[in-house]
């Protein structure tokens, strides 16, 4: 039987990186995710799997080390929290342009600016709408459990390589700092040089006589060919939207009202929903696991049975904009949220449910 151990979400990320055969981690400490690098340093994977762990001089340096590693077909990653991710956005945009796979973990804290160190979800727009410049998307996974922090590392790399694009785990201070039971998987070996050539034939692994040069770049000075590249990227994003949507539903079968919440807020909302159900309020929960691709069709499919929806987030109401596009005026979309590092309690959400749905 697989071992089950007590881990902080951040520690789960670090162990998962080692266990899934990650080649390199480059990061810079910031609360509330510092345990990611601390755990990697304590585990010393360079002595076992050969994984590189390096504390860079800044977030900007970290993401550019990731860019370099990814260009050679390695499974590389970084992690940070909100202000650090802002610094990395240039690099993420370049990697999206150069079609490079990588994993970026954002354990969000309150903003804007340096903000607070407490939990927040105020980087939803940054993660799902770009963050950096240019028409690009990244795959965004939103874990709600310690086990998902662990499992999504391997999944993020799998998707990133499948579609040649950056993937992000968008967590928050609650999931990062909380300890839960996590089932540990078997150690996967890191890819050999031959496996990298097979799995990432586009990578800069040293030109051989039987192929053209592999060039890693996001620069194309010819607008016609750049537009062709843009069209290709957009087609790829549509394929991702078609194939990779993930979500869970809770008490939705007879729901007349739907709460949509991700990450820690989905769990807190679940407790509030149980209490509202006892009062006879027919409310359910849809938890997007992928924020890009967003579960548009799943929510659309629920619309005929719904009287209203409510987005519950730790921000000023960001995902609510996506829900309004899906609702398209058919049902009202309400919002409840807290900001700045304050975590909404089940009682507060229950009161919002009563106010809006009863």
């Amino acid at each position, binding site marked *: 039987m697989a071992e089950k*151990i*007590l881990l902080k979400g951040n520690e789960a990320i670090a162990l998962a990186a080692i266990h899934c055969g990650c080649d390199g981690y480059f990061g810079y400490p910031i*609360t*509330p995710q510092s345990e990611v690098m601390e755990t990697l340093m304590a585990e010393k994977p360079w002595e076992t799997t050969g994984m590189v762990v390096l504390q860079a001089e800044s977030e900007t340096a970290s993401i550019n080390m990731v860019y370099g590693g990814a260009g050679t077909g390695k499974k590389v990653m970084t992690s940070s929290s909100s202000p650090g991710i802002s610094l990395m956005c240039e690099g993420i945009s370049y990697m999206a342009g150069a079609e490079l796979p990588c994993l970026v973990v954002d354990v969000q804290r309150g903003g804007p600016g340096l903000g607070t160190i407490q939990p927040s979800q105020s980087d939803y727009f940054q993660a799902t709408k770009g963050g950096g410049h240019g028409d690009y998307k990244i795959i965004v996974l939103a874990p709600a459990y310690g086990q998902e922090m662990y499992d999504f590392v391997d999944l993020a790399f799998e998707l990133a390589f499948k579609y040649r694009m950056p993937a992000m785990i968008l967590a928050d201070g*609650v999931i990062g700092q909380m300890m*839960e*039971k996590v089932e540990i998987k078997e150690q996967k070996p890191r890819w050999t040089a031959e496996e990298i050539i097979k799995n990432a034939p586009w990578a800069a692994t040293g030109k051989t006589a039987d192929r053209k040069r592999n060039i890693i770049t996001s620069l194309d000075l010819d607008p016609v060919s750049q537009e062709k590249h843009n069209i290709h990227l957009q087609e790829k994003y549509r394929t991702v939207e078609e194939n990779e949507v993930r979500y869970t539903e809770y008490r939705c079968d007879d729901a007349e009202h739907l709460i949509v919440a991700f990450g820690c807020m989905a769990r*807190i909302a679940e407790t509030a929903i149980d209490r509202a159900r006892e009062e006879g309020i027919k409310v359910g929960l849809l938890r997007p696991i992928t924020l890009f691709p967003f579960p548009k069709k799943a929510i659309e499919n629920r619309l005929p049975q719904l009287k209203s929806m409510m987005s519950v987030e730790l921000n000023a109401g960001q995902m609510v904009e996506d829900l309004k596009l899906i609702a398209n005026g058919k049902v009202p979309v309400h919002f409840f949220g807290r900001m700045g590092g304050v975590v*909404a*309690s089940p009682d507060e959400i229950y009161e919002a449910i009563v106010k809006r749905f009863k």
Partner: protein
Amino acid sequence: MKEEIIIAGFGGQGVLSMGKILAYSGIMQDQEVAWMPSYGPEMRGGTANVTVILSDNKISSPILNKFDTAIILNQQSLDKFESAVKPGGLLIYDPNGITHHPTRTDITICTIDAAAECAELGNAKAYNMVVLGAFLKMKPIVKMENVIKGLKKSIPERHHHLIPMNEQAIQVGMNKVIKK
């Protein structure tokens, strides 16, 4: 079974590690567990608290308004969490340094003079284990054998020789808890 617990006191009293040992004991008993600390500037030299949930079923919210049990180790925490105990719930506190004692009549209130018991044991570091023993006497939600397994998992191997001493401290807490 579902037990929602708040443990609160000063930083340095072993609040977080007591919670961790309790959570690990739950895992050893095949329960679902969550350990959610307050983190941030308030922890540095100030109060520390942690929510621990043990449950037979999947745990939804790790953020709670009300608790089945409050384990309270200083006055500030007593003032803050006495009202957060569910009716019929349990409040255990160390009376050492407490000037305003709890007044609720709809909950079970217990005291454990853990500081004094530690002095008698000659080991101040066993403070949180005495308190844990008091809790486990009142609510035996995890078996002692699983607590010891939880201890082994929580403590680095180089400190495993201290486990018998910790077990003894838990026993002392079990014997000395006073129901008011």
